[in-house]
């Protein structure tokens, strides 16, 4: 066959056309394969597979979830860990999006959300938010579980006696804590019993936050009736007079001890004021389950349980053994004085009270929950940022409003964390792979080359 110039050109053109079309086809197949992918987890511990419990939680979330990870760009290791954690969730729920934000570029956002750690996650669902520092499947699944509950939970703060304002900005108010609760989907209301003797509708829990003036007997009666009917209550006390709420303490079967707790441990950490109480270890309780840090309680009073009451008390905050309740003036040198009725630690600083009873005409029994803490300062704008104070407060509210379901997810442990090789085996491995094998390969090559040269 004779090829002329014209045919040459035609072949070249055909070739180009084929190459372009072919590469286009490969690109299209590539795009399709990246978008419609399935994956198989081959690891022994199922590291890339979600547990049954996590999948069930994801199934209850019908709307899109956004996870924003505040991690610096240069910290690729943390970003990689977050991606590995979230990807299995995305495979099960495609409308779960993960966004990385460099905290250095958005200081205002970081301040607003109270991000403290590189690698902290903010999970958003239906306008509610949860923050997460624990980068594990258990941590993320439980955060999603809390977000999944769409039931409106209302906290009602009693006002009219100089109580701390749940949304106020003053140092002694609870504004920052109140906003943190709102971000988690809690509704915050106030109630003045003098103005409206009837309690607002739909109260999930009532809060009495460190009153300054005395409650009227009629108001106390209202509160007692609320407790009798199974209402949840959070009561924050301060040292000194009970402001007319003694009948309430009697009803709950607790006795607030006189005096202020003094704690010499603060001085070791450079806190001059002896009334700063440090709590470093927590008794086992759902409220303190995930707390690792210290919490700080300025000017607190101790509580004691044991009076006659239908409630079952459980302490969840205890001071160190070297503390005591100081009844004298807090000036000059102070020391434990048992003759004055001062008590030696460990002292109970916070306790929960529970009761289960059958309300008339209802099938399910009522599970009543009450939290009493001998201090209100630890949640104020001044002290909220200290240690685990905020987490403690949030956990207490979550427990109080029955949002304390916790799913235990076993860790994905590798099967091979232990390696037991005898010194002999190690030597054999080292010599065999490093010297014998390469030398043998070289020798083979050499012999072949030599034989071929001779031939």
């Amino acid at each position, binding site marked *: 066959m004779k*090829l002329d110039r014209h045919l*040459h050109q035609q*072949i*070249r053109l055909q*070739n180009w056309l*084929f*190459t372009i079309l*072919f*590469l286009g086809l*490969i690109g299209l*197949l*590539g795009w399709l*394969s*990246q978008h419609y*992918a*399935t*994956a*198989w*987890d*081959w*690891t*022994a*511990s199922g*590291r*890339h597979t979600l547990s049954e419990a996590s999948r069930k939680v994801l199934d209850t979330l019908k709307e899109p979830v956004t996870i924003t990870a505040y991690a610096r760009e240069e910290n690729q290791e943390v970003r990689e860990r977050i991606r*590995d954690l979230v990807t299995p969730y995305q495979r099960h729920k495609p409308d779960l999006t993960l966004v*990385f934000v460099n905290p250095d570029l958005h200081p205002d956002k970081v301040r607003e959300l109270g991000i403290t750690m590189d690698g902290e996650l903010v999970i958003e669902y239906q306008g509610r938010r949860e923050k997460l520092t624990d980068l*594990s499947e258990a941590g993320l699944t439980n955060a999603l579980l809390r977000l999944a509950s769409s039931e409106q939970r209302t906290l009602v703060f009693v006002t009219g006696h100089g109580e701390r304002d749940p949304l106020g900005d003053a140092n002694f108010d609870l504004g920052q804590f109140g906003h943190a609760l709102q971000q988690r989907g809690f509704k915050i209301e106030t109630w003045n019993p003098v103005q409206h003797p009837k309690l607002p509708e739909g109260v999930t829990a009532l809060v009495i936050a460190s009153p300054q003036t005395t409650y009227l007997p009629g108001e106390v009666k209202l509160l007692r009736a609320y407790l009798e009917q199974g209402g949840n209550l959070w009561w924050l006390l301060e040292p000194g007079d009970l402001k007319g709420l003694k009948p309430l303490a009697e009803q709950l079967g607790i006795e607030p001890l006189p005096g202020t707790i003094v704690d010499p441990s603060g001085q070791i950490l450079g806190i001059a004021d002896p009334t700063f109480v440090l709590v470093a270890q927590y008794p086992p309780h759902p409220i303190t389950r995930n707390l690792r840090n210290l919490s700080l309680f300025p000017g607190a009073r101790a509580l004691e349980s044991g009076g006659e009451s239908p409630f079952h008390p459980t302490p969840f905050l205890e001071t160190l053994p070297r503390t005591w309740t100081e009844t004298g003036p807090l000036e000059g040198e102070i020391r434990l004085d048992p003759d004055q009725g001062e008590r030696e630690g460990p002292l109970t600083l916070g306790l929960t009270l529970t009761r289960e009873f059958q309300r008339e005409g209802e099938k399910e029994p009522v599970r009543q929950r009450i939290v009493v803490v001998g201090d209100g300062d630890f949640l104020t704008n001044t002290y909220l940022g200290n240690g685990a104070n905020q987490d403690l407060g949030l956990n207490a509210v979550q427990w109080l409003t029955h949002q304390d379901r916790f799913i235990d997810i076993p*860790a*994905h*442990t*590798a*099967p*091979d*964390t*232990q*390696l*037991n*090789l005898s010194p002999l*085996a190690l030597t054999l*491995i*080292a010599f*065999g*792979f*490093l010297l014998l*094998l*390469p*030398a043998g*390969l*070289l020798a*083979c*090559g*050499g012999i*072949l*080359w030599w034989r*071929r040269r001779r031939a």
Partner: protein
Amino acid sequence: MSTLVIAARELRSLFLSPLAWSILAVVQFLLAYLFLAQLEYFQQLQPRLAMLHEAPGVTDLVVVPLYGNAGVILLLVTPLLTMRLIAEERRNRTLSLLLGAPVSVTEIILGKYLGILGLLGVMVLLITLMPLSLAFGTHLDWGKLAACILALSLLLATFAASGLYLSTLASQPTVAAVGSFGALLLLWIIDWSAAIGTEKGELLSALSLLHHYENLLKGLVSSADLSYFVLLIAAFLTLSVRRLDYDRLQK
């Protein structure tokens, strides 16, 4: 049938040259050194692992890095093995003989490709002996090891296909080696761009060899990563066939 004949001929000529043996020896030595260093690191770390939540094991800390290193080292080495495939035949004027023989171009390309795959298979086998030796001292994560072997095999098959294509383009073996090395390195580092996290970054990481290779090394075998390698191999082989066909027609 003639595909296998060509493959056997290719494999024989590879193993008769000192090049293949010395490459096998050097790669084995380097990887053994890195493997032992990683093993020593693990033994230092071992007491602390017990206290870690979701602690990684031997497979994660020794085996996966070994295959990661193998990927990098073989990226440098495979072009040396593949450069001669067609380019040398062309330089020695034996290509026209081969093209004139009663075999199709597809058979020539597939035969040459299978030949080089045979050699690379020996390489994967030699590397895999090292993690297998650890099985005497621990319960290895076999699934993850299998994923690593699969990942390295696919990666080397991709390297070989690209080397073969570059060899059909070049008239000098060294040019083929340099070209193939450059192309592979570009595919390797393409996702190092600062655009990661944006849409452009996603496209770049979807194109990146390293990204797909590391995904497989994690033990998560995704059809997206598998098809990336398969498509790349198919593309290079088809282009090689077209290129030789075109050569034959233009003669």
